[in-house]
């Protein structure tokens, strides 16, 4: 993020993505709706503070996993609320169901100086920076081109399932890239969309976290 760009809030990002059929896990929630939310998603739950001011959530203790009952839920909600009090930017608290186990993937879209809109795919999680095994493609893509992009990924065999991880549905993943490509192509103000991680679970892809960087309107 630079001086000329801003992060969208969670709900802004979620709404924008939803317009293109890209569905994030969970939703932002206010205190009064916690019970309703818990009934909707079921325990154990996750709460996270999402701030356009601070993008390193984990380090700041803003991601709280494994909340098993209403008491823990309201307690953690209050903690996050207090923690983020007075922070600049747009802040919200997101309620999510606990993510399934599966392969952690990262999907990205950005506006490149040389190539215009570009899509990126790779392994998510902590090793991603060392492994640096990502694949790029110029956007937008049709389904065939998106599938071809997945096959060009050096570690594409991981998508077939590995050591207990479920196989990733390539069609679903390709469709996600098609939508992401269309989204960034049709919204010139967007500089970058980062979906990290996306978990390839037994029931399909689960989009856990998002960052959408937009150019400031002047």
């Amino acid at each position, binding site marked *: 993020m630079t001086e000329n760009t801003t992060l969208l809030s969670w709900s802004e990002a979620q709404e924008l993505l939803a317009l293109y059929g890209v569905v994030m896990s969970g939703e932002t929630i206010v205190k009064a709706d916690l019970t309703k939310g818990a009934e909707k998603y079921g325990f154990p739950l996750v709460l996270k503070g999402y701030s356009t001011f601070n993008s390193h959530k984990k380090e700041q203790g803003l991601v709280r996993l494994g909340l098993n009952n209403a008491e823990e839920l309201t307690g953690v909600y209050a903690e996050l609320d207090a923690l983020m009090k007075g922070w600049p930017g747009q802040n919200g608290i997101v309620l999510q169901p606990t993510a399934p186990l599966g392969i952690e993937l990262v999907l990205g879209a950005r506006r*490149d100086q040389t*190539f215009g809109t570009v899509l990126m795919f790779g392994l998510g999680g902590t090793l991603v920076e060392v492994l640096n095994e990502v694949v790029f*493609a*110029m956007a937008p893509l049709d389904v065939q081109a998106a599938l071809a992009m997945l096959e*060009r990924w050096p570690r594409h065999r991981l998508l077939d399932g590995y050591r207990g991880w479920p196989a990733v549905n390539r069609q679903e993943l390709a469709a996600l890239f098609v939508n992401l490509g269309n989204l960034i192509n049709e919204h010139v103000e967007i500089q970058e969309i980062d979906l990290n991680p996306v978990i390839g679970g037994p029931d399909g892809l689960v989009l856990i976290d998002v960052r959408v960087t937009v150019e400031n309107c002047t």
Partner: protein
Amino acid sequence: MKNINVLFNPASIAVVGASPDVWRIGYNILQSIVEGCFQGQIYLVNGKYKQIMGLPCYSGLAELPVVPELVVLAVNQYVTVEQIELCARLGVKGVICSAGGFKEMGQEGQLLEKRLITVAEDAGIALVGPNTLGLINTAASLYATFWPMSLNRGSVSVISQSGGVGLSLLTTMQDEGVGVSKWCGVGNRGVLEYADYLNYFAEDPETKVIGIFIEGTDKGREFIEAAAAVACRKPVVIFKAGRGEAAAQAARTHTGALAGSYRLYQDIFAQHRLLTVDSIEELVDILKALSVVGQGAGGDSIGAIKGVGLITITGGPAIVATDILETAGCKLPNLTAATLRRVEEAIGPNPPVILRNPLDISALGFMASIYGQCALALAADPEVDALLAIDCHHRSWSLPTSELIKVQAECRKPLVVCYIGESQAVAKERHRLHEAGIPLYHSIAAAAKGLVALKFYGGRE
């Protein structure tokens, strides 16, 4: 086509800044054009002289008896900008700007370049450079560079961001017996971009294969889209340099271009099914295969290649070659019973070799006639779409060149030959084989990569 054809096929040329001083670019451009035997009119412009090399010298472009179609500017960046304004007024269609000192040199240079571009674009001038060695069209005997040379004519056209790398490409092609059609140093690409040259070469009937050296461009998308479109019709082979930070910096000061992420380039080339290489030598190896194959008997276009046949008289090179072929997805199919029978007929019953593909006929293949019969049997196999033939130059024995030319004439399948030996020793063989549409290599890996390139672009049309 933005007047590009005038650049490569001008009826007349004026050299502005022509000079009798051998250390000046204005001398060398003139020498290059004159000694290259350009057939059109040549005009010299320099107010200081009456005559250079026995040719009359004019005081200015406006003083020439005609408006020249192509103007080569061998003057500094400031005079270049003045002259382009004059060219615009006179109605000149094509200009080559040799001078550096433009956008690669900071803010003042950027302003000069902007002026240059605006004037050229408003007047519809096809402008090469600035900051360029120039261009060559062998078919028109046009050598409009300040590096005089003479080249073998051929069907490869080259677009190079760098004069030096472009020069290295030309000399390597010359050494390897690969003929040139057109060559252009694009320099700073003020007006004409890669895409413009690519689209021109796509339509150019004399260009069969296109080689590109690129450091970087800020119009990457335009470049890729043009290259991808052209590659459906003619093979395009790309050498992208500038992997690291230091290289990116060098590229910026060289032609003022963003090198961009190397990785991004590579992935996007792959996305668009464009063939890339990692060195000048590899680029020439691949241009050789793609331009030589099919230029002989009948000029066949390259068909789809699934199975490759490999014949050798020594086992190791076959392993080296097979590694490269298999990695690139070339299959070495089993030979049919009929093929094996033909091989056995050639080498006699109960041969001391294993009859399979790759076929190592060992000492039995020292005789060129037997080698030729076996190669023909292999090439005729229905599972074999292309043949790689490996042999070694020997002081006392003849190579199976005539035999392989016959194989090619009979089977009409792409044939790539590797003669292990010194370059000089097989120079004559190279000439004969290339004439017959058979690329010759001394390097085993280069031969295998040449075949891989044929597979890459084979069967696209």
